[in-house]
């Protein structure tokens, strides 16, 4: 369970999140939906400690974000940022291998290697494992990054617009995969989506931010909608 208490954050001088209280349930898919600039990505990056919030508190199970050791949190929670800047000369297998770093700290065991090939197979990247990232298409690269996040083997997965660059077939198979991760492996998935159709079809919970009650306003807080 991710519990967010009275969270506020500024980007530059403008208030993006304003006193948000929110609980994201465990073992389910929660979709964040809303217009551009509603603060969805900001919320994810605060949960994943990529930014330090202005005020408020975030707890992931018993770990308080920002207070607990960052490498402990890395075994509990993984994020796929919206525009990850990744060294282009890595091969897919190397990139996915980095996902295991929180567990092996640079000395991969056979189990780590097995997890990496599992993740590669799960995202159907077998044929591409030894290609370097800059020779891949946008969608293939997106899947490689997702495989890295999956290989990190965390209870919580935060995905910022993972459907970017994916065609309809790939989008559907990715969302199906997220459901499998959630139902078969008990992972908790928080995903930013733009397409409300995908959210209604695949997500258990939807957090909506609409112009009348945006994420940033206190009045609107956030609406948690059961599917």
């Amino acid at each position, binding site marked *: 369970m991710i519990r967010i208490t009275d969270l506020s954050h500024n980007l530059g001088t403008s208030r993006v999140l304003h006193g948000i209280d929110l609980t994201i349930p465990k073992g389910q898919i929660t979709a964040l939906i809303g217009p551009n600039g509603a603060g969805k990505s900001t919320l994810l990056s605060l949960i994943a400690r990529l930014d330090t919030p202005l005020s408020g508190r975030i707890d992931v199970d018993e770990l308080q974000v920002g207070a607990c050791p960052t490498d402990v949190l890395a075994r509990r929670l993984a994020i796929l940022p919206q525009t990850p800047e990744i060294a282009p000369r890595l091969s897919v297998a190397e990139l996915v291998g980095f996902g295991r770093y*929180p567990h092996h700290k640079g000395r991969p065991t056979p189990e780590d290697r097995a997890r990496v090939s599992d993740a590669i197979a799960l995202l159907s990247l077998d044929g591409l494992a030894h290609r370097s990232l800059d020779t891949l298409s946008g969608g293939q690269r997106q899947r490689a990054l997702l495989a890295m996040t999956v290989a990190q083997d965390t209870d919580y997965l935060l995905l910022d617009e993972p459907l970017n660059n994916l065609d309809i077939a790939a989008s559907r198979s990715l969302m199906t995969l997220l459901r499998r991760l959630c139902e078969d492996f008990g992972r908790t998935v928080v995903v930013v989506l733009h397409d409300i159709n995908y959210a209604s079809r695949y997500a258990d919970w939807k957090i909506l931010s609409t112009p009348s009650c945006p994420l940033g306003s206190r009045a609107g807080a956030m609406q948690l909608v059961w599917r």
Partner: protein
Amino acid sequence: MFARRLTFLAAGLGLSCLGYMTIGSRGGWDFLLPFRGTRLAALLLVAVAVSTSTILFQTIARNRILTPSIMGFDALYLLILSVSVFLLGGAGLSETSALARFLVSLGLLIVASVGLFGTLLLQRREDVMRMLLTGVVLATLFRSLSSLIARMIDPNEYSTIQVASYARFSRIETDLLGLSAVLILGVVGIAWRMRHRLDILALGRDAAINLGENPRRRTIEVLILVAVLVAVSTAFVGPIAFLGLLVVSLAHLVTPTGSHGTLLVSSSLIAGIALVGGQTVLERVLGLSTPLAVLIDLLGGLVFLILVLKGARR
């Protein structure tokens, strides 16, 4: 990875060292070993220091154009040295106080570089061209201040600074060899132990945090390591502007990988070949018609131009 290529490089370095020790020698080994041996050791230490500091700096700056010397690290060291000569006097210093001055300059360089380059590198928005410009401006500023001081002090004392301000490979200050060896090998050892963390840092800030690293703290640690390496190698052979850029670019060509374990080894070997081999060929075979520093800066400068023209692509 790349075991065969690394073996070839090691063999090349071995040959260079052999050539450096034997070609054109007339004395016996009891003369050669202390005479050429100390200088060979100094050259090898400088090679490791320059290549390691460049790799470390490029990883935390996340690009392949910037190097410590382009960012003005060695100019900053010379400025600190000039100021200390200006304040304390230089020519008449005894050996112990020369050592003390080296250590004080080293300490100041660490503080100043963490302050200056730390603030620059820890900004959220990283912009290579702005970093490059800042580096060039800083380096020029440090050099101008050094030459201002040079005009203000006693000419005899200026000679102390002058010796330090130009790259030189044939006359090497071997007085500090023992201490420098300890410092360089210690820092290189730390860098080697950090190699997996460096791999993660090279992925970028967000990815590093996601994988449980602390980029902020590591950046400062790495800057300290770089400052030590630059101070020692500058004290040895003076500033060599483009050596680091040259050997690290070559290392990326010979061993194209993101693994710092491999890159640290290959770039050190290449730097050793460039310095020892180059010095052997120039000094012994061609009779020292061209200083090695000129040649290295010429080649390194070309690499720099090519990299800039190709764009700041990583």
